[in-house]
Structures are given as structure tokens and as C-alpha cells.
């Protein structure tokens, strides 16, 4: 029982960063932009999340609003990089895959460089801590699993219905979907395709930046240039897992994190399993396997994904 509670608690706790980032990437992809540079934006966001509280008080505890500023800084840097990416792939219409890899290098590179120049070393911050929600956390089993987390974790989970609502119910979400599926149709109705795409990139960038800042401020509470370690790519992959639907993306993020914590627990408690590498593979294999057996058609996805829009150019 204890084992199960531990695994589930940690799953909820650690899935937040991936969840936020892949929801952001969902906005990008829904608008037709494939942003492989999520990793770079996350890294930049992580750096900003570090920089602001660190320059305020180093590793000492800082007032909550400073940490919040850190999160906002991450978010803002994400917006900037998102818009910059937009300039390249929307305005200049560069191929998105390659530009995404470029963005990834740029983000990781800048974050690492600025970190070296202005902070240096591997430094830590006090960050935003988890806390037990009074009363609720006292509920047996459920209390521990759901109500002992970082405030941002709750926000991440709230983002799921919110994103769902935004993308499926609001006018803006509808425009985003239209622009990502048939930009010509949207254009013919007077919707400014490129503006919507920029907006979606800003949103996606903001969330990727926030996810990065979450990693530094709420989870790792430290920064080094390797902090993202491929989580951006996983986030992109999870969007495909989720067929561009927030609820399924959440399922993917939870599944991945669940497998990750589960394998950790197996390593800890089943020492007779000598070759831990195979356990480390578990989350990746599981995600592929679940997608393979779930077999859902992709018909409702953004079919203009990756294609730049040009009103006059016909393809």
C-alpha cells in the first residue's frame, strides 16, 4: 500500500513540468507550427527562473513574490523565444523541423552562456516548496497522493481543463484549430493566419518557459546547463501521444512519469534486478507500447502541421 501511495504521489508531483510543456506544445501544433525547439525554450525558462530569485538573494529564502517573478521571468523568456521562432518559421517560412533544432541549440546555448557569465557553477535557490494542504491532506491515501504538492503542480493540472476549454470552446481556440488544419479556409474568413500562429507560439513558448522555470524553482531548485536533459523532446512526443487533446496529453504525461517513478521504486526495492539500464528504459517503452495498442486514428489532428502559410503561393 505504502509503495503504491509513494509511486502515485511522486507521479503527480513530477509530471507537472512535462505536462505544462506539452500542453504548450499542443498550442503550437494545433496552430500548425511544429516546435522542436521546446527543449531550448524550457532551458531558457529554467535559467530565468533561476536568475531572478538568485540575483535577489542567492540561495537564501526569498519572498514568495520574487519566486513568482522568477516563474513570470521564465514565462516571459518563453514568449520572447516563441515569437523569435515565429519570425523564422512564420514570417521567413523556414522549414520548421530544422529551425526547431536551431532554436533548441540557441536556447540551451544562451542559457548556458548567460548562466556561466552571470551566475556560474551549479547554484541552488530556495524556490517554492511543496506543502500539505490543511485538512485535505489528512484524508487517508488520497490526501497524500493529491494534496501534498507544490502550488504550481495544482496549477499545471488546472491547465488541462483550461487548455481544453480554450482550444475547444473559445473563439481564439477555434481560430487556432482552423489555422492549423486549413489555413486557407481561416484566411478566406478574414482570420489573420500568421497573427494567430504568432499568438499560439507565444502561448506555447510561455508554457514551455514556465515548465522550465517550474523545474528550477519548484522541482530541482537549482540550475545547470543540462537541467532539461531531453525533457523538451519528450514533451513534443507526448503531444503526439495525446493526439493534440489536453486530456490525453495529461494521460501521457502521467503515464510516462508513473513509469519513471515505478522503475525508480523497482530499482530501490528489487535489488536483484541487476541491470538497471533496462529499468531506465521502461517509461519510454511503455509510452510507445500504450500508443501502439491504443490505436486511435489521427484524423482530427492539425493537418497543416509544419506547412508555412502563404496566401499567394499555391501548393
Amino acid at each position, binding site marked *: 500500500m505504502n509503495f503504491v501511495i509513494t509511486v502515485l504521489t511522486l507521479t503527480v508531483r513530477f509530471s507537472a513540468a512535462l505536462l505544462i510543456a506539452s500542453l504548450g506544445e499542443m498550442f503550437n501544433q494545433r496552430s500548425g507550427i511544429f516546435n522542436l525547439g521546446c527543449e531550448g525554450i524550457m532551458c531558457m525558462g529554467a535559467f530565468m527562473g533561476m536568475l531572478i530569485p538568485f540575483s535577489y538573494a542567492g540561495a537564501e529564502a526569498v519572498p514568495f513574490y520574487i519566486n513568482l517573478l522568477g516563474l513570470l521571468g521564465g514565462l516571459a523568456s518563453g514568449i520572447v523565444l516563441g515569437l523569435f521562432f515565429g519570425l523564422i518559421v512564420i514570417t521567413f517560412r523556414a522549414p520548421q523541423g530544422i529551425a526547431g533544432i536551431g532554436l533548441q541549440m540557441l536556447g540551451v546555448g544562451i542559457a548556458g552562456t548567460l548562466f*556561466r557569465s552571470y551566475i556560474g557553477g551549479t547554484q541552488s535557490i530556495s524556490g517554492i516548496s511543496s506543502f500539505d494542504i490543511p485538512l485535505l491532506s489528512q484524508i487517508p491515501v488520497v490526501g497524500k497522493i493529491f494534496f501534498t504538492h507544490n502550488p504550481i503542480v495544482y496549477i499545471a493540472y488546472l491547465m488541462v481543463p483550461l487548455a481544453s476549454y480554450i482550444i475547444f470552446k473559445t473563439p481564439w481556440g477555434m481560430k487556432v484549430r482552423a489555422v492549423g488544419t486549413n489555413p486557407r479556409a481561416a484566411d478566406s474568413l478574414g482570420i489573420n493566419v500568421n497573427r494567430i500562429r504568432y499568438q499560439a507560439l507565444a502561448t506555447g513558448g510561455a508554457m514551455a518557459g514556465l515548465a522550465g522555470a517550474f523545474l528550477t524553482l519548484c522541482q530541482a531548485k537549482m540550475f545547470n546547463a543540462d537541467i532539461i536533459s531531453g525533457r523538451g523532446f519528450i514533451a513534443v512526443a507526448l503531444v503526439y501521444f495525446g493526439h493534440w487533446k489536453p486530456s490525453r496529453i495529461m494521460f501521457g504525461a502521467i503515464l510516462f512519469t508513473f513509469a519513471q517513478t515505478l522503475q525508480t521504486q523497482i530499482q530501490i526495492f528489487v535489488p536483484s534486478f541487476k541491470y538497471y539500464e533496462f529499468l531506465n528504459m521502461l517509461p519510454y517503452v511503455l509510452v510507445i507500447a500504450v500508443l501502439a495498442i491504443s490505436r486511435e486514428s489521427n484524423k482530427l489532428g492539425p493537418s497543416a502541421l509544419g506547412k508555412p502559410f502563404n496566401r499567394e503561393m499555391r501548393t
Partner: protein
Amino acid sequence: MKNSYKIWFKVSVVVIAVLSAILLGSLLIIAAGGNVLDTYWIIISGPFYSFRTFCEVLLRAIPLIIIALGVSVAYRSGIINIGAEGQMAMGIAAATAMAFAVEGAPKIVAIPLCILAGMAAGAVWGFIPGLLKAKLEVSELLSTVMLNYVAAQFYSFCLRVPLMDPAEIAGGGTGTAMSAKLPQNTILSKVVKGTVLHQGIWIALALAIIVYILMWKTSAGYKMRASGASSRAARYGGINVAFYLIVSMSISGAFAGIAGAVEVMGTHGRALEGITSGYGFSGVVVALFGALHPAGIIPAAILFGILLYSQVSLQLFTSVPPNLVTALQGVIILVIVSVQMIIDNPYIMERFRKRFFSRTKEAAA
């Protein structure tokens, strides 16, 4: 001079691009406290300092060419292979294992066998996402990203357990995870003594020719390209799209596997952690830079080799921090792709003509 505006257009785009790359990069360099001129000079002139340094560039171009060729085959067939990193790791592991199995065999047998082993392992690792996509509609972007991590762990396991250098643990220690030195009969010799450039370059060039022939001269290549360009039309035309998807992905993986084999047999001489060096991702960039054609991929790989090489020389000769090199590479990639798209866009060129050349035209008319 009817088309002089075209030349002016291209020249001005390139000039603006170079300026903006320099500007963007300069901001970074200055922020990091480096010297702008030195930095750019080292990137550009470093490789041409001597024949030896240029060989360093070619050395990096070898795996890039091979991987990019494979990526281009898959891409042309409608599947994006970003799993080359993992396929390469599998190739390295298999080639290394084979190298010890054929110890003592004549070189002429041993080397092809090792390459074949790497190729087969890479092909298997490409086959899986191909199959998953063709039969179960699993997005290759998901499966290849995930399989990269699986391969990395498996590779790590191979180095630590089955391929572990016996010398490392001979003294009763736990040893560092790496394979033993490959037997001499499986090492690719150097093209020119005193440089790092190994015979793998011929393999890369041969593969470029093979890919060209395969994709543009044979019916199988034709079918792959048709499947990639429009799977619906290909299906209509009686082409077994799923089959060619799997085949092309296996070929793509096989190439990455060969790249791994060549890299371990030519450059490193033993399997180590970290020798995939991100070539799998750079390979995708190179393939797209090279317009998915062997004739473009080779120069693109050399260009990229220059960028990669600057990683070392910049640190040696300037004071820029190592991560800045990554950032600069990012800037350069972004600028080059943007420029490429702008230059190739007739509509923008047309606007340029209207803006700046319509008066000359009228005068001429």
C-alpha cells in the same frame, strides 16, 4: 540584363542575413564577454589553417553525411527519422561486438562484417518505428524520440556488461564502462598519415552515390519517393506504401548504424560513452540543409563539420564560454534556413522587383 534584379535580390538577402547573424551572434558574444571579431574569425578560418585541421572537419562530416543520407531516404519516403542517435548507438554496439568476434580474420573480411553488423543493428532500430507507423499509426516523432533513450540505455548496458573492456576490470576493479580497443584488423586506416581522416570518407561518398542511384534511378527509389510525396496517390498507383515506409525507415536506420560502425572503427577505435555526439540530430539538419539530395548533403555536412569543429578551436583561442558555441550554431542554423527560404521564394523576389526595379523596367519599356 533582364534578370539583374534577381542577382541584386539574392545579394541583398545574403548581406542582410550575414549582418543579422553577426549582429545576433555579437550580442551573445558581448553578453558573454568575448571578442566578436576573433570569434568569427576563428570559426571561419580555423578549419583552413592547415590540411590537418581541414581533415578534422571532414572527420566530422563523415558520420554527418552517412546519417543525413539515411535521413533523406526516410524523409523522401514520408517519414521523419529523428531516431538516428539511437540507431547509431545500436550500430556502434553491434559493430564492436562483431569486431571482437572476427578477431584474427583478414582485414578485408573483418571490416565489411563489422560494418554489416552495425548496419543490421541500425536497420532493426529503424525498422521498429517504421513498422509501428505503417501498421499501428504510431507517430515516428514519438517512437523515434523514445527509442533514442532506449538505445542510449541499452548501449550503456553493453559497455558496462557484455562489451566491457576486460583490461578495465582485470585488476579486480569495477572499471570504466567502455569496450576494449578494437582488434587491429577492424580499424579503418587513415587516408593520409598524420591526419585524423580515415577511410570512412570513401564509405560516405560511396553511400552518397548509392543513395543517388537508389532514389533517382531505380524503381524502388521511385516508389519510395512517390509514397513520401503523396501516400494517397502512391496507394492509388498500386504501390505498397506501408512496405516502402518500413523499408525506407530500415534503410535510414541502417545508414545511421553504418555511421556508428564507421565512427567507432575509424575515429575512436573503441566503443565509449558519448561517441554518438549528437550526430543523430545534426544529421537531420544536414539532410534538410542539403535539400534531401546527396549532392546537397555533402557540402552541407562539411559546413556543419566546420561549425562543430569550432567548438574546440573557439575555446582554445578565445575566451568565449563553451555553451556560447552551441548558441552560435543555433543562430547560424536559423539564419541560414531563413535565408534559403527567402531566396527561393519567387513571390518575395517579385515584391522586391516591384519595389526597387519597376522604374528601371518602365524606363526600359
